[in-house]
């Protein structure tokens, strides 16, 4: 059994098949990219994996256990973290608070302990903070620690979202269009970080991406989708040379 497997998954909204019998598997330590034109069902697959949507049929399995029925708030605890295409940060909180929410799946203290701020809560808080500081250093976010998200530039928010996902110490990270809205320089930084996430932190990366140069630079394997169906999968160059993929993008 492999690290993460999607097996014949489908998602239907009324008469529309957003995801149609998609299967793939990701092995540990891989950078796996899903590409496809707009509306191909890439983000829908992410929402299925993070259990925001219920699949019409098919199974998801992670580390030998079936996660098709797991409630969404337990996915993070299993070791799957994600970012969002349109940035879903907690706008009116500081970056530090945002990253600490990323630690929530490791919170162990009970409500009454929190209310009285028992010594155990203080110890746990410091341990969380230490972990958060490691991530801040990893992604070079020191300058924004106490800044409120609402006032920060788009590029920084994008990195903060990756940071928040990393704070939960995932084994698999889902990046939904990490480079969208970033300029060339920021996209370069992002590509280095994605490789570092894999090589230094040992986290498997599953991402959706449109920027083909970024895809070519970082991915080990690529899966192309169109209208919810798998067109091709393989190495970046194989997929880009595939006639169906060219047809889907250029409309030949």
């Amino acid at each position: 059994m492999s690290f993460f497997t999607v097996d014949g998954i489908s998602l239907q909204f009324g008469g529309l098949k957003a995801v149609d019998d998609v299967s793939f598997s990701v092995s540990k330590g891989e950078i796996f990219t899903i590409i496809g034109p707009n509306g191909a069902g890439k983000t829908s697959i992410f929402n299925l994996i993070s259990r925001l949507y219920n699949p019409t049929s098919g199974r998801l399995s992670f580390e030998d256990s079936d996660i098709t029925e797991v409630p969404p708030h337990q996915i993070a605890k299993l070791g799957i973290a994600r970012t969002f295409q349109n940035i879903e940060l907690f706008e009116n909180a500081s970056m530090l608070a945002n990253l600490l929410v990323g630690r929530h799946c490791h919170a162990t203290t009970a409500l009454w302990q929190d209310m009285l701020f028992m010594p155990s809560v203080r110890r746990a808080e410091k341990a969380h903070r230490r972990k958060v500081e490691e991530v801040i250093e990893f992604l070079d976010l020191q300058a924004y620690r106490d800044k409120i998200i609402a006032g920060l530039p788009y590029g920084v928010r994008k990195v903060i979202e990756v940071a928040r996902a990393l704070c939960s110490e995932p084994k698999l990270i889902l990046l939904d269009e990490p480079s969208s809205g970033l300029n060339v320089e920021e996209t370069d930084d992002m590509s280095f970080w994605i490789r570092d996430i894999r090589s230094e932190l040992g986290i498997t990366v599953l991402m959706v991406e449109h920027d083909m140069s970024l895809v070519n630079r970082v991915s080990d394997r690529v899966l192309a989708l169109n209208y919810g169906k798998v067109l091709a999968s393989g190495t970046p160059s194989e997929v880009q040379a595939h006639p169906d993929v060219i047809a889907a993008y250029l409309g030949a």
Partner: protein
Amino acid sequence: MRFIFKTDYDQDIRILKHSGYWWSYGILLAVMVATPYVLGSYMQSQLVFVFIYAIVGVALMILTGFTGQASLGHAAFLAIGAYTAGFMQSLGVPFIVYFPLAAVLTGVVGALVGFPALRLHGIYLVIATIAFAFIVEEVLARWESVTHGNEGMRVRTLDLFDIPIPRDSDAFYFLCLLVLVGVSVLALNLLRSPTGRAFIAIRDSETAGKSMGIDLAAYKVKSFAISAAITGMAGVLFAHKMTFISPEMFTLLLSIEFIMVIIIGGAFGVHGAIFGAIFIVMVDPFLTALKDDVPVLVSSIASSLGMAKETATDLRDDLSRIGSAAGLKGAIYGLIIMMFILFEPYGLYGRWLKVKLFFQLFPLYKRATFKRQKTYVKSERNR
């Protein structure tokens, strides 16, 4: 301007961030303790109402300001606390038992009200809480064996360990102050813990919160329960302060006053709840004074400017008729809420922070510092 050099994670965890705050809050506490020996009994009584409103304000701040769940049903929670106190006391239960019991009971009811919040958002949740408030009002009016119905219920003098604490005594003032300080500390503890951050996460993005491992259902119910329990405590104090409670005291208008407390004070901190409570409690005597004085003042100015005596008297009578018109208070409240939402959405506490920053940065304060930015990237799709 003070620059704080951080060397320890504890510095970010502490409630009072630096030694200056120890001084200012210490002085504030000393002033509050000295107040009953200085101020007259009227002002002292008003301050007790400020404390009670501030306790409810803190409760509502946790629910609305931090969890983002609006409620117009807090008068009902207050009523449940008040009636629990009245009923338990008539059975001979001591204060030290029925005070926490009222909090627990109201908390349980709050958790039950929280369940619809799992599916309702925004205005629909507000409607659900209004419905709940009406149900409670109706139950209080009908359940005569416990509540004495519309006749109302007399609440006897508070008895703490066989020491009577009458409603206008210094001891009662200190009791309310103690509860307010205690509740504020609990709220501050909550907000610096994982639970408080989960509340903020629910307010700002439910989708992201869910993906970060926050059980939305559990935390919404927790937030409702905590908020209701704190309001229940305020209800006990309210019952003893009023010495008489009846269903028509806990109407929608009272719930609106509570919402005003946090809108006017600023819904993002305990300070806001207290500022708002001061404003709400003090605006009432102010309006009364205006109602009495303005017509006389206007007519005397008018007659001194040469207006005929009869016309001036008519003017005075017209003005006082307007002043005592039914519903004027509600209209003025509505106007105040609208003004605050339009011009100072962060409330009095937000204004205070801006003034403070102005002096800290003087002369370098920039007018655009707090200008709100419009953002267009927020997605509503995964709601």
